[in-house]
């Protein structure tokens, strides 16, 4: 397959005034979003104004045909200002990619994508379910035919343990068993509109960090057309898109948070140096140590992005469904999530009490709290256990 056509290079879009404005707005409201644990409405409105919610959609449907590298850069820049906004942007792009890459020739989904471009619709996802302990690859709720319906109507009810920005999204992608008799791992992905759904929050979202993502549990119930079911098994969507794109974009959120914390630490060291010209402050050594960790972190994320781009849009796509790739992409998530918490911790050591404070230019409290979500979003222990099993057959480097 040839490279997708682009009307405008994404770096140009990201450099354009509307996206730069979104970055300013995200930075401006980040502390308030965090303190109040509220949805970053201003920043998301600014992203809509910049047309950024449809960057991942192909040009032929009115999007920008953005590659994952472009989306990764935008995610990182947003997350340096407001991690909640960065994570919402990242998650939305994951949903878009799932549709774009797996809708085959579905007319319904083609029309839908044009609607996303026109209306800058925000898409959330319900992949977790109460009773399954966070295993995305299993479902209890099932697509159930509506008895005696004239059209091809189906219905479902799902108790999702978490739906990030569920109360603020326009549409929802839900994993469900293919039929009421299907095994728990025989899943499909269904797109429905919140305006046609009954969605009741089951819990509150008052967390240590990532407070602005507003991710409580929901019970969702709705009826929809069979056309709204993506035409391939969720197993393929997960292996080829959801897992790799999530881990790559999340890693960019965490890299953005760490970059923010590093900059604050660097500014702190510079301020110290200015107070005593000619003497290198002792914290400078810690900063240089942190700088080398940041270089490793960036290389890790960059390498994973490049590998995915090499496989995603070519006839090597099958490579994404191999055990070796599963091991490597799980490793990215584990390593990046640990690197983020360590980087923020390192920045705190450098900034001392100026970093421990909840306000001021050297505060890294929000960054540290946000970074601690990384190891929990799909628990690292779960991924380590998965890799432990996969490494019984996969021989690294072979």
């Amino acid at each position: 397959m040839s490279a997708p056509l682009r009307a405008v290079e994404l770096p140009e879009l990201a450099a354009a005034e509307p996206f730069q404005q979104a970055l300013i707005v995200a930075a401006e409201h980040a502390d308030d979003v965090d303190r109040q644990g509220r949805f970053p409405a201003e920043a998301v409105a600014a992203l809509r104004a910049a047309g950024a919610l449809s960057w991942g959609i192909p040009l032929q449907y009115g999007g920008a045909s953005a590659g994952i590298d472009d989306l990764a850069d935008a995610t990182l820049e947003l997350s340096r200002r407001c991690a909640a906004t960065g994570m919402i942007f990242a998650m939305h792009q994951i949903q878009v990619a799932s549709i774009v890459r797996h809708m085959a020739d579905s007319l319904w989904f083609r029309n839908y994508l044009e609607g996303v471009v026109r209306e800058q619709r925000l898409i959330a996802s319900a992949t977790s379910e109460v009773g399954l302990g966070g295993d995305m690859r299993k479902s209890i709720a099932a697509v159930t035919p509506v008895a005696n319906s004239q059209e091809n109507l189906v219905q479902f009810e799902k108790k999702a343990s978490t739906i990030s920005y569920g109360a603020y999204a326009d549409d929802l992608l839900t994993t469900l068993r293919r039929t009421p008799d299907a095994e728990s791992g025989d899943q499909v992905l269904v797109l429905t509109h919140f305006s046609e759904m009954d969605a009741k929050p089951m819990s509150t979202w008052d967390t240590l960090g990532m407070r602005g993502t507003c991710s409580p549990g929901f019970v969702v119930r709705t009826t929809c057309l069979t056309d709204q079911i993506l035409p391939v098994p969720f197993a393929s969507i997960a292996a080829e898109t959801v897992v790799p794109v999530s881990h790559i974009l999340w890693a960019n959120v965490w890299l953005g948070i760490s970059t923010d914390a590093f900059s604050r630490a660097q500014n702190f060291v510079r301020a110290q140096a200015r107070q005593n010209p000619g003497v290198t402050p002792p914290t400078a050594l810690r900063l240089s140590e942190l700088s080398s960790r940041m270089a490793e972190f960036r290389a890790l994320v960059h390498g994973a992005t490049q590998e995915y781009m090499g496989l995603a849009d070519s006839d090597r796509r099958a490579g994404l469904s191999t055990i070796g790739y599963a091991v490597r992409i799980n490793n990215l998530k584990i390593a990046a999530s640990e690197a983020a918490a360590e980087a923020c911790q390192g920045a705190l050591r450098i900034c001392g009490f100026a970093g421990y404070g909840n306000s001021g230019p050297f505060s890294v409290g929000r960054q540290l709290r946000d970074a601690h979500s990384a190891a929990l979003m799909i628990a690292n222990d779960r991924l380590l256990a998965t890799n432990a099993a996969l490494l019984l057959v996969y021989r690294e480097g072979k």
Partner: protein
Amino acid sequence: MSPTEAQTIQAQNKERIRQLVRDHAGLAAFEKVDCSSDLYRAGMTSYASVVLMIALENEFEVEFPDSMLSRDVFESIDSIASAIESLQRVNQ
């Protein structure tokens, strides 16, 4: 090897694979599974598939290279049989 001999070996291989699937794939309704059934759809988890892979490597004295450790290859008894056959051909 004559075509009939090859067919016999193929049938024997499939029977051996079938036994391993029965013992290791953790399927609730194994008796409904035929050679072309989708094992994942029948309930094989990714962990069970790893256990099955190890059992297959032992039974047939082969090693699956990374390029073969994919979902398509372990999707059905038929697809496993052709993978094993291609590895045995390489080993000969």
